[in-house]
C-alpha cells in the first residue's frame, strides 16, 4: 500500500503531468525572451527617453480600466447570472464581442462612436466641448472596452457556481437585493471577482491595437508600454525585448505582491 508523507496533498499524475506541460508552455517562451535579451545593453535601453513615463502611464491606465470594469462589469455579470432580463443569451454573447473583434477594428469602432464625428462623440464635442480621442481618458476607455468582458464572464461563472440559497436567507432577514448583493453575494464570489479583475488588469496592461487606434500614441499622455514596445520593435528588437521584460517584471511583481489580497485565504 502506498503511503503518503504526512500532511501533503498529493497531485495525481494524470493532473500533474498536464499541469507541468501547461506551466512549461506558458513560461518557457518567457525564458526564451530572457535568454535572448541583450543583457549587456540593458541599462542603456532602460534609460531611453519615455520608458518610465510609459510604464507609469500603463500601470495607471490599466488600474483605472480595471476599476471601470469592476464598477460596470460586476453589476452586468449579476444581471446576466441572476435576473430574468429578456435576451440574456444574446447579451452574454455580445459581451464577448470585444474579445473577438480584432483590436484595431475595436479602436475604429470606438472612434466611430466616441470620436469627434462619432455617433455619440459629436454631441459630446458640440454640447460639452469634450473630445475623448487622443487623451489619457481614451486609453482608459479603450482598455476598459477590451478588458471588461473578462471580468464579466469570470464573475458570471462564479455567480452561477455560488449557492443562491444564501441570498434567500439574506432576503428573509429583510435585506434588499442591493444589500444582499453587497454583503452576501459579492463576498461569496470574491475569488471569482478577484480572478476576473486580475484578468482584466493584465489584459488592459497588454492592450495595444484599440489603444493605438482610438487613443493614439503620444508620449506622456497616451503612449503605454505596449505602444512603446511596438515602436521600439521597428528600430531595435533588442530594445523591444527589454521593454517587454520590464513590463512583465513589474506586472508579475505587482501580482505576487497583491497575492494576499486577490487570493482570499479560504
Amino acid at each position, binding site marked *: 500500500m502506498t503511503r503518503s508523507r504526512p500532511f501533503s496533498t498529493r497531485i495525481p499524475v494524470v493532473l500533474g503531468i498536464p499541469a507541468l506541460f501547461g506551466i512549461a508552455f506558458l513560461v518557457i517562451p518567457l525564458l526564451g525572451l530572457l535568454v535572448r535579451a541583450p543583457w549587456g545593453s540593458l541599462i542603456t535601453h532602460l534609460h531611453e527617453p519615455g520608458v518610465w513615463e510609459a510604464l507609469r502611464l500603463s500601470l495607471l491606465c490599466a488600474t483605472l480600466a480595471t476599476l471601470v470594469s469592476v464598477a460596470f462589469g460586476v453589476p452586468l455579470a449579476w444581471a446576466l447570472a441572476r435576473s430574468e432580463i429578456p435576451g440574456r443569451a444574446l447579451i452574454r454573447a455580445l459581451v464577448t464581442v470585444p474579445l473577438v473583434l480584432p483590436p484595431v477594428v475595436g479602436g475604429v469602432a470606438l472612434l466611430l462612436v466616441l470620436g469627434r464625428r462619432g455617433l455619440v462623440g459629436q454631441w459630446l464635442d458640440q454640447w460639452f466641448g469634450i473630445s475623448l480621442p487622443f487623451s489619457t481618458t481614451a486609453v482608459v476607455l479603450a482598455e476598459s472596452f477590451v478588458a471588461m468582458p473578462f471580468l464579466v464572464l469570470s464573475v458570471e461563472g462564479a455567480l452561477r457556481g455560488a449557492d443562491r440559497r*444564501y441570498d434567500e436567507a439574506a432576503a*428573509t*432577514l429583510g435585506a434588499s*437585493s442591493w444589500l444582499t448583493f453587497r454583503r452576501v453575494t459579492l*463576498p461569496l464570489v470574491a475569488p471569482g471577482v478577484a480572478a476576473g479583475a486580475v484578468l482584466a488588469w493584465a489584459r488592459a496592461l497588454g492592450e495595444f491595437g484599440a489603444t493605438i487606434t482610438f487613443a493614439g500614441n503620444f508620449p506622456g499622455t497616451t503612449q503605454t508600454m505596449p505602444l512603446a514596445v511596438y515602436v521600439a520593435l521597428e528600430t531595435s528588437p533588442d530594445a523591444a525585448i527589454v521593454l517587454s521584460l520590464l513590463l512583465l517584471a513589474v506586472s508579475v511583481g505587482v501580482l505576487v505582491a497583491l497575492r494576499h489580497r486577490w487570493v482570499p485565504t479560504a
Partner: protein
Amino acid sequence: MSERSEGTAQHSERSERTVQQGERTIQKGGRSLSLDAALRVERPGFVLDIQLTARPGEVVALIGPNGAGKSTALRALAGLEPLSAGVVHLDGETLDDPAARVRLRPEQRPVGVVFQDYLLFPHLSALENVAFGPRAHGVAKRQARTLAQEWLRRVGLGDLASAKPGQLSGGQAQRVALARALAVEPRLLLLDEPLAALDAATRVDVRADLRRHLSAYDGSCVLVTHDPLDAMVLADRIVVLEAGQITQEGRPAEVARAPRTTYVARLVGLNLYRGYADGPVVRLAGSGEVTVAQPSTGEVFVAFQPSAVALHPERPAGSPRNCWPVTVSTVERHGDLMRVRLAGVPPVLADVTAGAVADLGLTPGTQLWAAVKAAETRVYPA
C-alpha cells in the same frame, strides 16, 4: 412516582398549559387570526395543498414524515417558493395572492426563518451573522452588534461571537441560526427543526428559552419538528402533514390521544387500526377484527398501547376478548422495555419486559399468540 424523561409523547388531560399560558390564552381569545394562509405549491410528482392558520401568539407545530412538504410550506410562507394558487394573509395584510397578482418579496415580509441546514453566511462571523438582520432593518451598526451579542449570549454562544461558521460545530451553527432569526423580531417566525442539532442537555435549555421567548411575543410561529416532545412542549396546536396534505390537526394532547393516521400513531407509540364498527366488534379495513369495550357503529379508529398487548406461547384461555396468532419480526430495546414487532392479522406492536423476552425465547420468527383486553382499547369515529 417514576421519572419520565424526554420523548414521552403520551399526554394526560391534566397536563394542560395552565401555568405559563394563562395570559396568552386570554390575549388570543379576543383577537382574530394573525396568519391565514392557503398554500398550493406544485412540483413534478409532488403537490402541497394546505390551509394554515395561527392566532396571534400561537405556536403551530408542523409534523410529518420526511418529504411531506413541511420545509416547502415554510418556504412558501417566507415568499421563497411561488404559490401556484392560494393566499397568505398576515395580520390583515396580504403577503401573497397570485390570483390578484400580489406578491411581497421575501425581504418585504415581516418573517424570520431558521433553515433546516442553517445557511449561515460563511464569510461572516457568528456575531455578524446575527447582526445582519437588524442591520438590514436599519439598526445602527454599534447597536446591532450589541443586540447580536446579547442574542448569542442567550443561546449560550457569547464567547464564540467572532468564530466563522466553518469553525463552529453543527449544534453551535444551529444556535447561531436561531439567534439570527430571532434577532429581527419578526411577526411570523418560521422554524425548520430549530433544535435538531443541539445536544440533549443544551436542547433542554434552548427549548425552555425558546418557550419563554415564544410566550413573550405575540407574533405567530410555525415550527417544523421531528421530535414529539418539542411539539408537545412548544406548540399550542399540532398540524400533521403527510404527502402534501393535512391529515390531522389539533391540540397536542388531542392528537396524541386520538391519532387518525398510522404516522401519528407510530409517533405517539400506539397501535392504530381503522375499521367498520358494528356494536362491540370492529371489522378492520385490512382484515381481521377487534372486539372493543365501547360499542358503536360506522367508520371508526381503534387504538391501544403496545404495553396492553400480552404475548403467550400457546393460545391463552380466559378473559382477553382479542386473541390471534402472530410471528415475531424484530425485537429492540425501547426505553426500559423491549418492543416487539409482530406480523399477523392485524400486525401489532407489543412492549414487554426484558425478562419476558428471555422467558419466551423471543427471536425473529418465533410463533406466538397476542392477546388484548377489550377494556384496553379506545374507539373514536373516523
